[in-house]
């Protein structure tokens, strides 16, 4: 009898547990928050970033002046034109050159300065500010300022040449020199940003590790080579990454300096896109440049992150 009541009591309890399924409580307002908070971003982003990118791929297959509908389908003709175009080839070469100089000159320069500014000496903060200043200036203003510097009649370079008794160089008008002049401005404009990255990276290096290396007998150079540099690895990779991506977008700085000239010797991909695509309303050709640029950016970004930054 007592056994009976025990089982009787047990059975309904488990049965009830199986029957009733409670909806667990959720934080209030989940649906409203999704409906209110997501669409603005989604709409703006889709409308002005994703769709145009997709349309660039579509338009790149047409010859179109931007009015009416793109109807004149030309297949990959625009890309063919592009890769047979001397100015575009020059733009590709220039973008490559900019990447090379950014990585091989600018990044080491920035690291060198950051190492010097890691010393606790008077005036460090002032130097830091001065070096970072060009980075906050607008590219357009920097370009114009350097246009003055390079000016053959009124500029600083002309005065310097005169001082040394050399003939006045018209740097920006010289097909061979102009691109190097642009490269110098790029370094002047952007090294401060990379320097700040390295300063931040150096601050994260544990001082006691350096002291341990010193006790182990490492010289200044050895400390840098075997301790600091390896510990800065992720910063170096990040800095190179920004240098590459930044180089590919270069436009604002080149326009006031040379506008891509003389005779296309300083074109970049974006100035080419502007000159040949936008000003002449060759939507198909311009979009094809956009597609090429997109593919290069995405490939580099993915490839670089996968190969060099996977551990960071």
């Amino acid at each position, binding site marked *: 009898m007592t056994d009976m009541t025990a089982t009787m009591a047990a059975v309904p*309890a*488990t049965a009830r*547990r199986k029957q*009733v399924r*409670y*909806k*667990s*409580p*959720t*934080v*209030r307002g989940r649906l409203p928050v999704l409906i209110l908070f997501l669409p603005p971003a989604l709409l703006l982003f889709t409308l002005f970033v994703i769709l145009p990118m997709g349309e660039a791929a579509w338009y790149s297959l047409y010859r179109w002046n931007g009015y009416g509908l793109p109807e004149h389908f030309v297949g990959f003709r625009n890309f063919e034109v592009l890769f047979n175009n001397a100015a575009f080839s020059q733009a590709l070469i220039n973008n490559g050159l900019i990447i090379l100089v950014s990585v091989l000159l600018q990044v080491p320069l920035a690291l060198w300065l950051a190492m010097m500014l890691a010393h606790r000496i008077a005036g460090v903060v002032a130097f830091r500010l001065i070096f970072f200043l060009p980075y906050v200036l607008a590219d357009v203003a920097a370009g114009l300022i350097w246009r003055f510097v390079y000016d053959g009649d009124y500029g600083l370079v002309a005065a310097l040449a005169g001082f040394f008794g050399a003939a006045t160089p018209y740097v920006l008008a010289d097909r061979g020199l102009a691109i190097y002049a642009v490269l110098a401005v790029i370094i002047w404009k952007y090294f401060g940003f990379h320097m700040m990255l390295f300063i931040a990276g150096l601050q994260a290096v544990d001082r006691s590790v350096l002291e341990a290396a010193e006790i182990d007998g490492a010289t200044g150079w050895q400390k840098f080579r075997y301790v600091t540099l390896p510990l800065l690895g992720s910063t170096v990779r990040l800095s190179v990454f920004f240098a590459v991506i930044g180089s590919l977008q270069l436009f604002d700085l080149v326009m006031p300096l040379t506008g891509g000239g003389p005779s296309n010797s300083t074109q970049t991909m974006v100035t080419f896109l502007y000159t040949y695509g936008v000003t002449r309303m060759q939507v198909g050709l311009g979009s094809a440049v956009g597609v090429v640029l997109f593919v290069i950016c995405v490939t580099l970004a993915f490839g670089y992150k996968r190969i060099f930054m996977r551990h960071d």
Partner: protein
Amino acid sequence: MASVELRDIRKSYGALEVIHGVSLAIVEGEFIALVGPSGCGKSTLLRMIAGLEEISDGEVLIGGRVVNPLTPRERNIAMVFQSYALYPHMTVAENMGFNLKLSGLPRPQIDKRVGEAARMLALTELLDRKPNQLSGGQRQRVAMGRAIVRDPAVFLFDEPLSNLDAKLRVQMRTEIKALHQKVATTSIYVTHDQIEAMTLADRIVVLNGGRIEQVGTPLELYRTPANLFVAGFIGSPAMNVLEGTVDAADGEPAVRLGDGSAIRIAPERKVRLGQAVRIGLRPEHFVASGAGNAISGPTLLVEPTGAQTHVLFEFAGEQITAVVDGDHPARHGSLFQAAMERNQVYVFDRATGAAL
């Protein structure tokens, strides 16, 4: 104030079940501590009661009402978090009154209730400060103040003292106990610190691996642990455990240890001859001289703590800790001699760990 009941509570993450059917009845006004090693599920259980964690199966009742589908606010619980979780941008007063403000209480009433709570916790002077201007103990009190302001049915504490230093922890422990005696709200307190549980709780729930090992008053757990796990968990320093087999010595039940020595056990232990067991000897049950089992061995280590001295000695091939009076003349290398009454010897089945 309300009673709390758990009915066969389960929690699983996908196929992995971490709480395996916990049932528990907590009466109104009771102070319950959930203890266990980290990962035993005590915090998960608390958060399921709070409504912060989904209940996979089973029912939680507060005040006789099933609260599974209710939000924390609707359950009318208050919680003190391990990190206190004070809102850093609000003053003490705003922190304490935030809940009342959200429920639309008029400002004068909020101020009144915050003021009362602040007086109770000696926070009146600090009401205009921000949390980062407070010491650890003060933050702790604000966290409690935030809980009592709303006069909840149940207080939930999630390891509230673990971020404090040892001295402050003892002080705050006292304050929590005093507070509970004053407001007498049903409280559920999670901790991994058995001393905290012992000193604070009316009853302790020992959890291990998502199951309840034992429920009882602090002294019940200490005196009659249901199994080896509870015995080892409750009490400090921890109980000494030795392996042996049940045997008879001079016609009385005893446990024969590995080295052949016999430890007599109480005759009412439900053991059978030849059973593989473990015996438990509490360090504080050793007496310098007296009746019972004589236990001795070379002294390995002496740790004076003042009133008492912990002696580590070797016996039956094992290292045993004993707590003796501070005056006891113990020295490294000398022979340590002590006795233990047979009633004090705990016996557990070696296979199941259950107390015999």
